[in-house]
């Protein structure tokens, strides 16, 4: 932790930071602004209108894509939460060579360029004769998201002392009960945070979905991508604004909810005298 305070604020870094924030937000705000334009222009704002949003609601193909993306994100989140948590628990306690190898392999998707993962998944699904559909997208997204869940859950797990679990065992819990009654409740904030993050990432994910999806219905980002390739239009601004807003809110929730919950769940601190972390 940085101690004390520096007296003067350095001028150049402050200027760079201000410009950075402007550069970060201006393009996004421009997208949002022109989604409310009553003309087709993306450079002169002539009046407020909801016509582009109205057009979205009546675009049934787009609604189908939205439904497909919600379904993909929901199932992939649940699947990767289960598998990722199992993996995190196992890796944290199995300290053998085998455990380290498995740990390294499961982190590989994080350092592999996404296009490689996507292309490889496409080859695998085609090779074993699975027809490309929302199901194949779900399988690919789960595989990719397990690592995120594992990293987040292991971070939280490292703060739970082994003794707590041993105490539960000494009080007569079976290993399974120790996990269910002692460890999982402590992990809840991390699980909620990981779940929200993975949901947002999968919902927005374009590259994996692009390579593993079937023709109909296409996930939302894939559909949006093909219209972007044709050019820019206020209709894309409208759907883009909604997508940014939705995933922005999810990320905010992923950052805030675990902190609030972790502060509340002090029962464990009581047992161990607050020395758990």
């Amino acid at each position, binding site marked *: 932790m940085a101690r004390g305070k520096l007296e003067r604020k350095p001028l150049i870094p402050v200027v760079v930071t201000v410009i950075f924030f402007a550069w970060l937000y201006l*393009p996004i705000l421009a997208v949002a602004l022109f989604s409310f334009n009553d003309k087709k*222009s993306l450079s002169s704002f002539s009046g407020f209108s909801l016509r582009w949003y109205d057009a979205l609601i009546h675009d049934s193909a787009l609604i189908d894509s939205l439904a497909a993306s919600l379904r993909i994100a929901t199932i992939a989140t649940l699947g990767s939460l289960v598998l990722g948590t199992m993996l995190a628990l196992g890796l944290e306690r199995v300290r053998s060579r085998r455990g380290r190898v498995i740990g390294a392999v499961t982190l590989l998707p994080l350092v592999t360029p996404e296009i*490689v993962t996507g292309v490889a998944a496409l080859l695998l699904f085609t090779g074993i004769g699975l027809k490309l559909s929302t199901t194949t997208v779900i399988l690919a997204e*789960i595989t990719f998201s397990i690592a995120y869940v594992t990293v987040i859950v292991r971070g939280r797990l490292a703060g739970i002392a082994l003794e707590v679990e041993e105490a539960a065992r000494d009080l007569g819990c079976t*290993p399974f009960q120790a996990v269910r009654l002692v460890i999982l409740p402590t992990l809840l904030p991390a699980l909620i945070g990981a779940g929200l993050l993975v949901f947002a990432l999968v919902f927005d994910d374009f590259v994996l979905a692009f390579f593993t999806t079937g023709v109909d219905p296409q996930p939302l980002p894939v559909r949006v991508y093909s219209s972007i390739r044709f050019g820019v239009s206020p209709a894309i601004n409208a759907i883009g604004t909604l997508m940014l807003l939705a995933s922005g809110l999810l990320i905010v929730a992923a950052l805030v909810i675990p902190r609030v919950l972790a502060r509340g769940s002090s029962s464990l601190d009581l047992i161990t005298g607050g020395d758990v972390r």
Partner: protein
Amino acid sequence: MATAVEAPKARKSPRSAQKTSLWGWLLALPTAWMVAFFVSSMAIIVLLSFGRTTNDGYPVFATSTANYRAIWNQVYLELFLRSLLYALATVVISALIAYPVAYVIALHGGRYKNALIAAIVVPFFASYLIRMYAWKALLSDDGLVNSALRGMGLTDGVTFLNTRWAVVGGLVYGFVVFMILPVYASLERLDVSLIEAGKDLYHSPVRTFFSVTLPATRAGLYGGVLLVFLPALGDFVSAQLLGGASTYMMGNLVQQQFAEGQNWPLGSALTVGMMAALTVLMVIYLRATATRTREL
């Protein structure tokens, strides 16, 4: 792999609690999943890179090195070199942005530190695609920037899109957060009195930065370089939306073979070649940074 679930033995010493078969059993399912869907897919792509296409265009396994000989030509090598340069430029620009921003937030952010970091993280994890689109809309010939320039009577319009600057700019916009976060984390841990001492010693902020701040935050910088370089090298969205054929990167080439060209064995060889080059670069980089960090 999967050890059978045993009935819990009556009483064990506390230490061996961690070795119950439950943990091994918990590992089994996710491990099986990763082998089935990740490891095997990587194996298939390596195998197919030695394959060929039949006369009616279907990819089949074979034992030919023709694909690798095909990608070893000037066009592909130039494209690979270009991707490397774009990715390196992205890393350098990201570091130049990340240090001042992380410095200001970590040392002068006060109680707004977390809010400021959140203000950076939130848009970065919201739709990459829409953020690329935002730049396309802004920079297009009749976009906001050009109409502002015309309005001020400066030019009749500048072509921003289809230039390498647009593509690298898009990559930086896409991935700079992966540099800011690790640099910020190591700056946060830095003792400010070190910087104060540096200022007393060197009387120059620039020298203080290079002799105190930079060495002390090396680990964060090294991590950030990797986290930006890897996704930038494999990206194809920035080059496709903000650039054109003259700015295409490795990712675009791979994407064309799989989505448009439909020569999967050739695409597989390109992918394996990219991963091999990446692995060599990573090993060199990790060894170099490991020795530098040890010297500290």
